[in-house]
């Protein structure tokens, strides 16, 4: 299903999401905008890699250069004038070394992080994720076990997946996480 570009993106760019988010938060204090910024950075990276002959040699450096250029462009074009964004262009020139290096987690530590992420979910999300992903029940079986409609189960799964993704990438900040959860709690079930 995934093209080679997708796999490259998942293998070489996404692992740096935590560092990217730390950088974006330094530059922009509005949590709502940080996620949009991240999306724009990813779009630039993806398009650029798609057009290039070869993949970038140093993906992390490429990622941060792209983020820096994006921010600089936006500030220079005056699209961002609110006090939320730093006007200090020098602050954008964060050296790679400045950002704390990601630790290479052992498989065991990664499992621990997954368990923590799982425990961070709401009750219903946690139950649903457990039955589907750990016990391996089918969607129907899990819905029956928990006494909920499949559509509801899907909703919980979606919420759980998004929260787990943020934990897995180590990228969510408190504000962003809370907003995400709060916004989704108002959802009605989907058919």
């Amino acid at each position: 299903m995934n093209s080679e570009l997708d796999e490259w993106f998942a293998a070489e760019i996404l692992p740096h999401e935590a560092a990217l988010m730390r950088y974006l938060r330094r530059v922009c204090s509005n949590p709502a905008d940080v996620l949009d910024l991240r999306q724009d950075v990813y779009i630039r990276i993806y398009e650029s890699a798609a057009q290039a002959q070869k993949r970038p040699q140093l993906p992390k450096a490429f990622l941060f250069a792209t983020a820096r250029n994006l921010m600089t462009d936006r500030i220079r074009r005056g699209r961002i004038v609110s006090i939320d964004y730093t006007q200090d262009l020098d602050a954008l020139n964060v050296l790679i070394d400045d950002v704390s290096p990601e630790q290479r987690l052992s498989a065991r530590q990664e499992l621990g992080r997954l368990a923590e992420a799982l425990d961070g979910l709401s009750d219903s999300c946690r139950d649903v994720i457990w039955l589907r992903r750990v016990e391996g029940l089918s969607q129907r079986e899990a819905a029956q076990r928990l006494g909920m409609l499949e559509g509801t189960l899907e909703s919980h799964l979606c919420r759980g997946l998004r929260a787990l993704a943020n934990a897995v990438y180590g990228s969510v900040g408190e504000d962003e996480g809370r907003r995400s959860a709060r916004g989704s709690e108002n959802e009605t079930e989907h058919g």
Partner: protein
Amino acid sequence: MRPSTDSEAIEQEAARWVVRRDSGTWTDAHQVQLDAWLGQHIAHRIAYVRLEAAWEQCARMRALGAGVPEGVIPPRASWGSHCFRRVPPETHPPPACADSSHKSETPGTATPSDVPRARARRLAGTRFLALAATVLAFAVGLYVLNAGLFAGTRYATPVGGIANLPLADGSRVTLNTDTSVRVAFTDRERRIRLERGEAFFEVAKDRTRPFVVYVGEKRVIAVGTKFSVRRDDDDIQVVVTEGRVNVAAAATSPPHERGGAGAWTQGGGRDASESTGTGLSSSPSTYLSAGAVARTSKAEVLVRPGATLEAEKLLSWRNGYVVFDDTALADAVAEFNRYNRRKIFIEDPSIAAIHIGGNFRSDNADAFLWLLQGGFPITVEQTEDRVVLKGR
């Protein structure tokens, strides 16, 4: 304050797609809808890839289910830090929680020992850990790089290296010079990506999980076979020595992911009347049987069936040999250069078309050069970092 509905809405939609795809009720119509949504905007595709990778990672949580009775959802924080720390061997047997060095089913002290294990309790997490801890057979300069969360484990050989790896399912992979592969086994698929170079696969039978080698924009699908895949930029070569493989484009949804397990062919059903895969194929997928050599470049697949002798020559690298048979010097030099850091250059175009033959040890460039100098109108100039061939 501008609400960030765009990226959030996109992520929400992507989550729905990832979850739905795994729900067991996926149809071709769904696939069409998903492809359409992905095609609408790169942001859609990125959000989807991101969440799908995370979803795959969640499968590793199965390790947390070790020893937990079916139907019981453990309360929060009931894992115990011992699950995630190495347990010294002198202490009592570890509690029920997957650990790479304790793959056995000892329930430990936490649960009764006669609890039956749920049928779906294949510990994907344990398998992943086991793969990471696999003992490697002989290897010359093998690098193992665990990409951590995302794309499985990467194995690579340097120029002139060769390595033979056992995989967790009993398959074996032999990596040739300057090769890089990623191995990521999931519940549905035993997935290998050939990033560069050449590898030979001996695939163990597992009818529940196809063995798929992703190379460039192609997939080579196998069950119980032996075959090699070689990549030179966009050109791909597949040689089958035993059994059969299917070479298809990677861009379409893999047939085995549609409908139930065991669906192999493009049509989505078990196909009893598989073709023997001879001749030039214009269909999206091509079957290759033992003795077949296939070369693909972009969309075209050129198959030579029954080319057993050629197949043997193309695989002689496994024994450390390169075999030339009426081979143009330029090609022979290019082949030798794959195995050696000190590259050979042809300065005189006039000698590039000289044809040579013979078996050479890939790591013995000297013998090769000696032959050239002795048997042909070629002079060999050697410096510390390169070799230059000129006409005499």
